[in-house]
């Protein structure tokens, strides 16, 4: 594992310009595929590969690719971030608080690679079998039998669903509908916060001005609008705002 760059089984592609070598990322079907090829380079049983070494190879590979200013698909970067996290977990002294543990995550990654590898080999063995119509043949000139519960009209399930696909594709006029989302408008928020703050003398958290039971997107909308509303009300001198530190709760009080 010492001779880093030679370890990579990378297809190298010569750019037309001739001076830049690029790594062909298209050669891999996603990060797991790349990890598996890297793992295979360790030339040991997949059950015994070193996940740490593998993680380092992957990260180095992505670094190389970045250095060569390649377009790297987002999922490769997501995997790189995840592996960097895993690596730090594996290197640092074990923190029993973290669940699942880095060791468990490493084991699962190993298992996933084994599973993919198993399927890849299974596929190759399947394709290498004696196949009907290529290696073995049925009778070339069958006389045919008396019909036994065979419908005279022939159509397969595939024909059926493909036909429906065609019908739908033909009928489908692309219509884009903007989904109506429940939002709290700025006007509503100003109205609401002004009304509520009028009766409050003590400092109150911004969140306490949200409608009770607001959830999900509506809550986010209400929070954003209420925040802007408090800024507007503060500008008008109707409320005072206070925050002890960055990201601390935003406190509001009426000035009246």
């Amino acid at each position: 594992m010492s001779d880093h760059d030679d370890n990579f089984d990378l297809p190298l592609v010569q750019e037309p310009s001739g001076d830049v070598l690029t790594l062909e990322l298209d050669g891999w079907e996603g990060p797991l595929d790349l990890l598996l090829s890297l793992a295979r380079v360790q030339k040991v049983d997949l059950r015994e590969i070193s996940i740490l070494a593998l993680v380092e190879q992957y990260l180095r590979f992505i670094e190389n690719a970045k250095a060569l200013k390649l377009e790297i698909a987002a999922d490769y970067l997501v995997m790189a971030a995840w592996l960097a996290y895993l690596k730090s977990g594996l290197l640092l002294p074990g923190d029993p608080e973290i669940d699942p543990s880095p060791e468990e995550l490493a084991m699962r990654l190993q298992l996933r690679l084994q599973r993919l590898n198993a399927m890849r080999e299974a596929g190759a063995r399947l394709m290498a079998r004696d196949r009907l119509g290529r290696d073995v043949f049925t009778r070339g000139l069958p006389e045919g039998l008396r019909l036994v519960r065979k419908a005279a009209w022939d159509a397969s399930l595939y024909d059926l669903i493909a036909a429906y696909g065609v019908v739908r594709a033909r009928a489908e006029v692309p219509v884009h509908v903007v989904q109506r989302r429940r939002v709290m408008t700025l006007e509503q928020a100003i109205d609401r916060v002004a009304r509520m703050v009028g009766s409050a003398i003590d400092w109150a958290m911004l969140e306490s001005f949200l409608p009770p039971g607001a959830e999900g997107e509506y809550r986010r909308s209400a929070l954003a609008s209420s925040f802007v509303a408090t800024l507007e009300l503060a500008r008008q001198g109707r409320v005072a705002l206070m925050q002890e530190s960055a990201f601390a709760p935003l406190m509001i009080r009426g000035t009246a």
Partner: protein
Amino acid sequence: MSEGGEPDDFLRALEAALFAAESPMTDAELATVIGVERLGDALLRLQALYAGRGIELVDRGGRWHFQTAGDLAHILRRTREESRKLSRAGIETLAIIAYHEPVSRAEIESIRGVQISKGTLDVLLEAGWIRPAGRREVPGRPIIYATTPTFLSHFGLDSRRDLPGIADLKAAGLLDPVDLAFAQLEMEKPDDHA
């Protein structure tokens, strides 16, 4: 085997070639297929091997082929009832009924965007795949159609709920315009590192 022990590889190859052939073959063609100079008496030996069996090897004017023994002809199809492919209109209509049942003819036409001929529904009715399922209580009281148990068994479905939904069709690439789907067949590069 009656003609002295196991057939040799030569005879086995000849047997397989005749079996797989799509038309009767001459002595010379067979020799080419199995890669020998001449067949000698191999065809006669193979013929003897099959004597009295359910199928026999016959020589028709210098061309050889296997055929069912004459006395067993009753199990063969007498009327060449070709199983016919359903027309495109037929399969589309059937698909629409399966996905939307019960539907009236006008509804099918509006989904297909094309009129359907009377014959199309007749073929589906005759095949036993659809049945009239009452009338829609709207002006004109049109007949509505639904699929039958025969339909389900023919297409290997346990229930209509097993039909892939729109999202599945889309995911499988079946909602793409035809030429686009073809381009994505992904059958191209022979891969070397599988």
